[in-house]
């Protein structure tokens, strides 16, 4: 792997961290539940780096969080996150970025905005929630329906983030075509 690839992967991992930290990007919805832009970073990772490198960037982010850096939204980090009820969502970041990247690649013919929106919803919402719900079922011993109901409050926020991802992807592509993997 070239230095260029490693540095880009590290950069996107840092972007995911920053999006979870910036208070300005906390979306004020879902009745007091802090919804941050962290998943926006995960969606962008797949779109910008493609499936393999995008998943690696997310894996690197998760690794740094587990090592103890308080980079998860809300300033959490360390091994504790592995035992939290939302562990499925954290682990799900990796396949979510991969599927987002894969969909983006498959939808090459579509305009960037549409392709990014579909990819972000498919990876960042469908795959991400599937993992999160399995995690809740395992950690919190909930049934599928209970886990679905418990997480449904977050879905509107994530739809907004998918839309934001598509806007950013489109605008970045215009500013710097090499920003999107395999499009330049």
């Amino acid at each position: 792997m070239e230095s260029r690839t490693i540095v880009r992967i590290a950069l996107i991992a840092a972007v995911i961290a920053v999006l979870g930290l910036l208070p300005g990007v906390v979306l004020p919805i879902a009745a007091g539940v802090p919804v941050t832009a962290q998943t926006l970073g995960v969606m962008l990772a797949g779109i910008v780096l493609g499936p393999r490198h995008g998943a690696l960037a997310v894996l690197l982010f998760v690794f740094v969080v587990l090592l103890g850096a308080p980079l998860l939204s809300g300033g959490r980090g360390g091994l504790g996150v592995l035992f939290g009820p939302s562990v499925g969502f954290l682990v799900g970041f990796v396949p979510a970025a991969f599927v987002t990247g894969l969909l983006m690649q498959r939808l090459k013919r579509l305009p960037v905005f549409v392709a990014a929106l579909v990819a972000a919803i498919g990876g960042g919402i469908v795959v991400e929630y599937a993992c999160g719900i399995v995690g809740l079922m395992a950690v919190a011993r909930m049934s599928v329906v209970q886990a679905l109901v418990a997480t449904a409050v977050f879905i509107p926020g994530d739809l907004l983030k998918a839309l934001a991802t598509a806007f950013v992807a489109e605008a970045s592509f215009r500013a710097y075509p090499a920003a999107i993997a395999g499009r330049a």
Partner: protein
Amino acid sequence: MIADSLAPPNWLSRVPAGVKLAALALFSIALVPVDDWRILAAALLALGAIYAGFGRYGLARLKLLRPLLPLLVVIGAVQALSNDWEAGAVIVMRLVAMLLAADLVSMTTTMSALMEVLAPPLRLLRPLGVNPRKMSLAVALVLRFVPVLMTRWRAREEAWKARSSRRVPVRLIAAFFAEILQLADRVAEALDARGFDTAPVAPRAAPRPPAD
């Protein structure tokens, strides 16, 4: 900001990282079959005592659990409604005990100590293409990039706000994105110029082609 994640040195900081990780694993596995709220309450009390022993820092650290509160309440309520109150209490107490124990390890262990413990298992992954040297470079880069990106973003945001009262538009984010991708490429060139060899370690690679 990142330095805040370590507690001031105390007795637990002096325990080797490997021992702490093993103890954490044993503790968490031991808690899984426990269904008696009294045992869990005792475990929570013991953990609370350790946190309190760390003084003001330990108590401040407990506040980091706050973002999890809504989810914990939902989980407890769901269990309480579908089984009974005790089931709800047990599951929430067990989760909190595991979280607190794991966080004790994280707040008393430096990142480099953890990386060292992880080095032998990472070496086993080398046949799969994992290069521990590249891994530690990548981790170091992430930690360095985070404050750099924060500063650069704030500068851009301030520049916008000084000129307009409107919200920060998406194209500002896009311009920022383009800027940092170019920054990444310059960092890569600098690494290559300083001879950071990212080629695999095993067969000494032929001279690298010039970076494009």
